[in-house]
């Protein structure tokens, strides 16, 4: 058995891993912001009266949701140069992960919008509210609270999917751990520490999401 945990080595590589953790968090954050807005756009596009647009967006969302993120990352990164568009790993990664999660978030929004009672729509029509006001002032504010749980879960989800960005060379946590492993021929400490760091962030984050959800429910009087 060659199991020999080296604490000195662990502490030596810890600063590098923690610095890479910041990159991981940044990637998750940027990807999530893209997904929040693009997801809403995809959800609203499916509610327009143009059947063709609804159909295309619906199929697009289904396609994104049923194909692997890692393949989408490769696709975005390598297909651009074929047509003369060079994307940096960060740009390609953010586009891929943002697009992937916007498909998931659009489903969360869609469920939220569907949960707004029909009477609310009818009331808006009765007082002659414009479509824009109906959405901005009546529907979306009511659609958001039931969506909070789903939105929060996908925030944790996007964080856990960022290691896939390492495949195109984004210097996040997984990429750094692999680099350290290759430099020192030791994979035990870096890979285990990656797992520990992920647990240390995602477990409290999941707890916070639950707390926030409860707080939101109470605040909305539910």
């Amino acid at each position, binding site marked *: *058995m*060659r*199991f020999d945990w080296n604490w000195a080595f662990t502490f030596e590589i810890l600063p590098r891993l923690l610095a890479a953790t910041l990159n991981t968090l940044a990637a998750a954050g940027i990807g999530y912001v893209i997904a929040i807005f693009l997801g809403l756009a995809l959800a609203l596009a499916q509610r327009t009266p143009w059947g063709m647009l609804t159909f295309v967006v619906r199929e697009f969302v*289904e*396609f994104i*949701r*049923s*194909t*692997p*993120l*890692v*393949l*989408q990352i*490769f*696709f975005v990164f*390598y*297909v651009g*140069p*074929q*047509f003369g568009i060079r994307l940096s790993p960060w740009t390609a990664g953010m586009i891929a992960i943002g697009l992937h999660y916007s498909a998931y978030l659009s489903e969360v929004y869609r469920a939220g919008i569907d949960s707004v009672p029909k009477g609310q729509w009818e009331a808006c029509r009765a007082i002659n509210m414009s479509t824009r006001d109906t959405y901005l002032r009546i529907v979306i504010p009511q659609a958001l609270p039931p969506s909070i749980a789903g939105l929060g879960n996908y925030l944790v989800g996007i964080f*856990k*999917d*960022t*290691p*896939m960005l*390492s*495949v195109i060379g984004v210097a996040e946590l*997984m990429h750094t751990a*692999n680099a350290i*492993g290759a430099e020192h021929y030791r*994979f*035990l400490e870096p*890979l*285990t520490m*990656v*797992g520990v760091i*992920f*647990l240390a962030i*995602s*477990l409290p984050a*999941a707890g916070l999401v639950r707390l926030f959800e409860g707080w939101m429910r109470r605040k909305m009087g539910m």
Partner: protein
Amino acid sequence: MSIWDFVVAYGPRIADGTLVTIAQFLLATLVAIAVALVMGLGKLSGNWLIRTPAVVYIEIFRGTSLLVQLYWIFFVLPLFGITLDKFTAGFLSVGLNIGAYGAELVRGAIQSVPKGQWEAAYALSMSPAKRMRRIILPQALAIMLPPWGNLLIELLKGTALVSLIAVADLMFQARQINASTFLSAQAFGIALLVYYVLARFLVTPFMRWLERVVARRLGRA
């Protein structure tokens, strides 16, 4: 190179990769179902010696990434004297990861079987094991099949990661073809389409069919 020439030239390799992906999918599904049942029932156990390991397992596997688990099982586990070949390490990691999510589905479904069913089984003085097997689990199965459909799609997508430890699956073949031809749009585009077809026209219809069968067997169709 037209898309048709591309398919003729690289179709066989893509087909080989697809077969490996399907094999990984089926084996990982078996692992996931076994893990989900054991850990889901374990989490419901009244005995903390059984409950604690199940909770720890579920939190660890749901709290870290599949990719981290895959690398850990493939690169670190050999240091503990457990060396797995890449094919086994691949489907085992995917199955163990998805199984942790499945365990929560099993737990939730068992808990949502109506209380009267538990009481009726108790009134008939069924043993706990028999009650679970004959009364609770069949009804829980009907409740949890729809979310399992989504989970199996996640599992299929998860198998794409095994290409990163050089299992020659669909994703791996697409990368190889891309590296030797630089025809990225064709290589990755066709791979995306194959995954889509597998998910949308094989896994999803199969799960729908299974839902109908279970509903009929429970006399609910």
